[in-house]
């Protein structure tokens, strides 16, 4: 299955992606993650102003059958949340990299981004999983 992993994003081992957007970092889950989850029926995200810490849970995404935690790729403060997702969680399945974005974070240490995988490394990592 030729799954998309955009080149301009960074990736985590928990299948989140991070995109630099000016001073913010936008976060979501990858095409691989949404495929593994199946139909997403529920999402729980933090509030604007909440702190997130790299490697720690910032919310959950749920399918009919299972709960899956979301792990922050970077440390910082949540400055924006994709609120429409709570009424249309399936957007994450349909468009995980654009409309399915989850939170935008003001990073406390922008260097953390460089420690994440690039698209090529992530693709190799995913292929190992299967």
């Amino acid at each position, binding site marked *: 299955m030729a799954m998309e992993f955009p080149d301009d994003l960074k990736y985590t081992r928990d299948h989140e992606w991070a995109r630099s957007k000016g001073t913010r970092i936008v976060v979501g889950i990858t095409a691989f993650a949404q495929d593994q989850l*199946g*139909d997403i*029926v*529920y999402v*729980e995200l933090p509030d604007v102003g909440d702190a997130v810490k790299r490697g720690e849970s910032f919310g*959950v995404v*749920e*399918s*009919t*059958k299972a*709960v899956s935690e979301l792990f922050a790729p970077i440390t910082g403060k949540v400055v924006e949340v994709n609120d429409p997702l*709570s009424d249309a969680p399936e957007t994450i399945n349909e468009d995980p990299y654009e409309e399915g974005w989850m939170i935008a974070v003001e990073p406390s240490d922008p260097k953390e981004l460089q420690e994440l995988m690039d698209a090529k490394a992530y693709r190799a990592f995913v292929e190992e999983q299967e």
Partner: protein
Amino acid sequence: MSQRTPLYDNHVRAGARMVDFAGWEMPVQYAGILAEHEAVRTRVGLFDVSHMGEVVFRGPKALEALGRAFTNDVARTADGQAQYGCLCRDSGGIVDDVVVYRRGAQDLLVCVNAANRQKDFEWLAGHAGGADVRNESDDWAQLAVQGPLAAQLLQRLTKVNLSALKTYRFSQGEVAGVPCLVARTGYTGEDGFELFCPPDRASKLWDTLLDAGQPEKIAPCGLGARDSLRLEMAYRLYGSDMDDTTTPLEAGLAWVVKLDKGEFVGRDALVRQKEQGLARKLVGFVLTEKGIPRHGYRVLQDGTPVGTVTSGTLSPSVDLPVGLAYVPPALAAEGSTFSVEIRGRAAAAKVVKTPFYTRKP
């Protein structure tokens, strides 16, 4: 050391996502749980349930022996009738919930849960009471055809008169040339059939059903949809909603416990429990706030843990978070409110009548 049903290759070919279930490699989904769930509610779906087990009681002592090991009154069934009930320990705790298919007073087939194949056989053999009890689990494959269009599809493939086959009745005949026990039973809440057939004919029967069911847009369905469908009906799932430590009275299965029919294992304990009153009851509830209840989440009353959720999901057909939970009897009445603890937050819940979903007429 996972086992595979005779349909393993069929599932892989159809693009199924396989998972381990009770030591079996089973399809959890093909096109997706929501699509498969909808297929069963509106058209017809096909399930591989060959992982389930079969234990057969034979001989002149068969009916009596099984009767002593089973909570429901199988002596009141007719040949060709199926009956749901429990096998209980002396303590009243449930060994398994099963369906008995009475082929005759001297020939009864007990269909058991996959996880309990060996446990149930050993337990039943230990209560054989002179009957010939055999583990025939390896001699059967089982396919379930479920949905409002199941009968119309199946009738094209069999001479068994399905319109004369009522719910919880079965007949032996051929489906697409394959000898089957054709039962009007199921675990979805829709009309449908469970077909017990020889394992070496199962793969071909599966392909034939998928092919013949094209006009009905039949969908292969996995364990994911099987679970969301049964939960909408509040059908209990052994291992989730009950186990050796729960009694049928606690689990809301008093309707399949016939305390007056005569002696059976666990009867004394159940009579005592009924007299003393239950300490907990399994109820159906919906959340009235956002969230999805899941097995193991705590039930809170004014912040105090008083019970536990045993099954939960976002119901695709009624579009509400639904679940089953053990609660104190004081909280069991319809309309009672409590909270479900979801990751540290108390989500409001309300006890409702079940099933959560009603079949379209």
